[in-house]
């Protein structure tokens, strides 16, 4: 999927460290909408929003939404059926 306005998971690497406690750019996610698998670094990322939105590169389905509500990170990763920790 090409959206020239979007970034990729590298852009939120720091946020993912805050949320998950470690580097997640090489963690492999499986899209719950279409089954595509790939590293989080290759997710289609929107950061110019009230939260961070990660979409599947194959089908644009929502993988993960991260918001920060009063210093608490809220993560919804229901779009991922699997997220494999990095090797």
């Amino acid at each position, binding site marked *: *999927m090409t*959206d020239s306005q979007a970034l990729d998971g590298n852009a939120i690497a720091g946020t993912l460290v805050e949320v998950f406690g470690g580097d997640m750019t090489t963690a492999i996610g499986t899209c719950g909408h279409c089954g595509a698998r790939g590293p989080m670094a290759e997710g289609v990322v929107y950061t*110019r*929003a*009230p939260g961070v*939105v990660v979409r599947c590169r194959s089908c644009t389905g929502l993988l993960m939404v991260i918001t920060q*509500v009063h210093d608490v990170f809220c993560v919804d990763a229901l779009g991922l059926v699997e997220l494999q920790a990095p090797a």
Partner: protein
Amino acid sequence: MTRITRGFHGRRRPDVDPARVPPGQYVTQDFPVLSAGPTPHGSLDSWSFTIRGQVDQPHTWTWDEFQALPHETVTRDIHCVTKWSKLDTVWTGVSLDTLLDGVETSAEYVTAFSDGGYTTNLPLEDLTGGRAWIAFSYDDEPLHPEHGGPARLLVPHLYFWKSAKWVRGLELQLEDEPGFWEGYGYHNYGDPWREQRYAGD
């Protein structure tokens, strides 16, 4: 303790009347583009706007029918929950009072829905009384797709995430249902003057 960066000001507008700035906001000169997904690109031929749900029958307008409705140009300040505010923005659109005229309903809530799947919820009352429009022009030009064109909801008295880009209709409902950002912890109502950014604020 966060260190102050010498000489950094950002791109804020100076000389702004503080009475126009809700708490926690910074006034910008730009018009930032915020998105949760790719910009939809549809054709006006297939565009329609529908009011459905708790109504006797759905009311739908094609683009031509929509353009034939009375519209007005308004100047308003807008406030984004990400802390930027932009003053004196000029929009042209059809008032929701016009669109809701003749629509009979016992609904008290609305979910606005858009191309791309975005939704946001608000009380039906907040769409009335000259406080909301379906806007198709910004700054005297057709609304650019990245800012929600061909048409977006405009509800300036609430945080701007409620002004759904690429809006295609309203679902009138008896119960309030959280929309996209409301479901991720953002405030159900979103009054910038009471700084209602997050649920529970």
